[in-house]
């Protein structure tokens, strides 16, 4: 590899210049130094220079194909070894939390799907669950089941894409193409359900946008039929691949103690043996009705994170199967229209619904949780635990919404992991962490 590749021309704040010789000389001469002493001063300086000249500051990102997002990693390298690593984030910082203080509870749903744009449904659901917990309302069973099915579909799409990109970064390009093809099936269903592929804005506080189309069940069953063989194909391609295994096994090892302390959650935490899953520990949306396992690995390296995602896809398929078999019928929006939007058709034809709609949508009316109430609500997103801390001041806009983004905590440990390793290992680690920049910076 060309050592100058990726080398930045822009001045870097960490590139502190070595001691200037001329100034040192003048300083020493002014002190009255002569002969041997001066020689020793220059000796030290030369050694310093030599050490510094072997080091190179390399910017890995923000526009590097292997970062899969706008992340800047600043590596100080000696040859191919990373001796010091630092990261700089915030390139996609959009002030979502500030925006929340100026929008109503219903309006902010659209902002949540800009966070993790690969699994927007999970963000929508997480936010809706948080506000519903704050208001103390429970959505109807059909809405719960549909949210579970869509979340799990979205999780499968996210995991399969991550596996594909992990393989692509390590040279297995065809796996990425296969993964994209499989993910397309998920997006077809999402598009059929809510009309958008990425920025879904599917949930509402107290329910969902509208009921699913009539062919929804057929599409999901078709997916359940077609996806497992393709999943097995990808798994077979990678788990028997000597090159892939050599690149990921024993790379980026995080032990359980470290993972807990750094707050790693989701597939990355569970690959390190942190036995945490919000779906099982604090069941929301009726996850306790479904019979599923929480897979866990103990080696904590990139290989374990790959295996973890593949295992979780199987469990998600299992949850979808159970949820589809027991999908109840009925309304999809909470009955109390003081907090949830009535149907559009009813708004046009029914006076009562029109009043409710008006009161909810007009600024200054809207949903009003009780003053001083606050809740930290968490759901299991594909990257890890997605938390929303919502504080109400009794008005229709929240006093504060804090997002606990899983990628943020997962990425914080990344500089520690790559230090002492090779540049190529950093690619293997970063791709297994699956950091979404939109969620990281918010």
């Amino acid at each position, binding site marked *: 590899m060309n050592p100058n590749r990726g080398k930045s*021309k*822009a*001045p870097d*704040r960490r590139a502190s210049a070595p001691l200037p010789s001329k100034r040192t000389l003048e300083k020493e001469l002014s002190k009255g130094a002569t002969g041997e002493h001066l020689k020793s001063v220059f000796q030290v300086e030369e050694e310093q220079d030599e050490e510094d000249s072997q080091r190179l500051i390399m910017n890995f990102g923000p526009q590097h194909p292997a970062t899969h997002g706008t992340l800047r990693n600043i590596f100080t390298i000696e040859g191919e070894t990373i001796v010091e690593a630092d990261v700089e*984030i*915030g390139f996609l*910082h959009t*002030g979502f*939390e*500030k*925006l929340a*203080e*100026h929008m109503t509870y219903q309006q902010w749903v659209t902002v949540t799907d800009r966070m993790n744009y690969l699994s927007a449904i999970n963000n929508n659901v997480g936010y809706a669950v948080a506000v519903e*917990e*704050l208001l*103390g309302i429970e959505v109807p069973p059909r809405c719960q089941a549909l949210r579970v099915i869509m979340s799990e579909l979205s999780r499968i799409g996210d995991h399969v894409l991550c596996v594909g990109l992990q393989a692509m970064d390590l040279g297995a390009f065809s796996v990425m193409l296969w993964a994209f093809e499989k993910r397309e099936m998920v997006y077809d269903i999402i598009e059929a359900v809510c009309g958008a592929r990425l920025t879904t804005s599917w949930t509402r506080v107290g329910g969902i946008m509208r009921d699913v189309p009539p062919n929804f069940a057929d599409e999901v069953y078709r997916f359940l039929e077609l996806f497992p063989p393709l999943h097995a194909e990808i798994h077979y391609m990678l788990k028997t691949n000597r090159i892939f295994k050599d690149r990921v096994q024993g790379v980026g090892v995080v032990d359980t103690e*470290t993972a*807990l*302390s*750094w*707050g790693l959650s989701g597939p990355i935490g569970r690959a390190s043996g942190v*036995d*945490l899953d919000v779906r099982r*520990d*604090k069941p929301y949306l009726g996850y306790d009705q479904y019979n599923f396992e929480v897979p866990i690995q103990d080696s904590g390296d990139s290989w374990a994170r790959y295996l973890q995602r593949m295992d979780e896809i199987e469990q998600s398929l299992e949850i979808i199967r159970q949820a589809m078999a027991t999908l109840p019928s009925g309304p999809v929006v909470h009955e109390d229209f003081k907090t949830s939007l009535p149907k559009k058709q009813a708004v046009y034809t029914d006076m009562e619904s029109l009043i409710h709609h008006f009161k909810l949508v007009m600024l200054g009316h809207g949903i009003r949780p*009780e*003053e*001083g*109430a*606050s*809740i*930290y609500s*968490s759901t299991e997103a594909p990257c890890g*635990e997605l*938390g929303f*801390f919502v*504080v109400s*001041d009794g008005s229709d806009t929240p*006093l*504060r919404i*804090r997002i*606990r983004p899983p990628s*943020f*905590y997962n990425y*914080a*440990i990344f500089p520690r992991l790559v230090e002492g390793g090779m540049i190529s290992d950093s690619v293997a680690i970063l791709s297994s962490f699956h950091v979404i920049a939109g969620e990281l*910076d*918010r």
Partner: protein
Amino acid sequence: MSDDTPPPETPPGDASPSNQQPAPHPVRAALPPLIESRILDEVTHGGQTWFIVRTPDQRAILEHLRFEQNFEFLKDITAIDFLGRDTIERFQVVYVLYRIPDKLNIRLHAWLPEEVESVPSVVDLWDSARWSERETHDMFGIVFDGNPDLRRLLMPEDFPAFPLLKDYPLKGRGERRQFPLVRPRGNEMVEDAPLPYPVSIGRGMHTPEYVEEVQRESKPRKK
């Protein structure tokens, strides 16, 4: 908020109905009495409990929770700005803790006066506090004493304000105009004149003199 509310002795969490405290929370009961007496209030809402303390006291409680009560997972650190509201202090620093064996969530809200701007850091207890404290510092200007790396995280290093404060306007104060524009010219990076500021974005939040000055500056140059 309204001015006829009772004197600001009680925190806003008191609005919660379950404030009679029939029995203290098990986590609170397990605290040593010297530390437990520092807790101002205990509030429960929606099945979640949080304790309210004043600022330097949370360090002792968090240490006890970490080492004696085995809360090994710090989920989040953040802050709330209560500017213009009837509260005893302006800021609250919030810690969200989790205990894995019994799946218990606990929050600690620490009041922080506006004039005191430093809070004891907890990076020695949980490593996950490193970035969350950095972000809280970045957004609110709160200094965490003992955090070894308290640089700005999401905002640029030379950003002059703290954007999540309630007195910071949603559309900013025109900081983007202040950034020097650096362009490559030949082999060098040359600092350019700042971009003309689009006045329509800033209208309504600047003084008329300022808008006038900006309009004067952003007139098209004659060729």
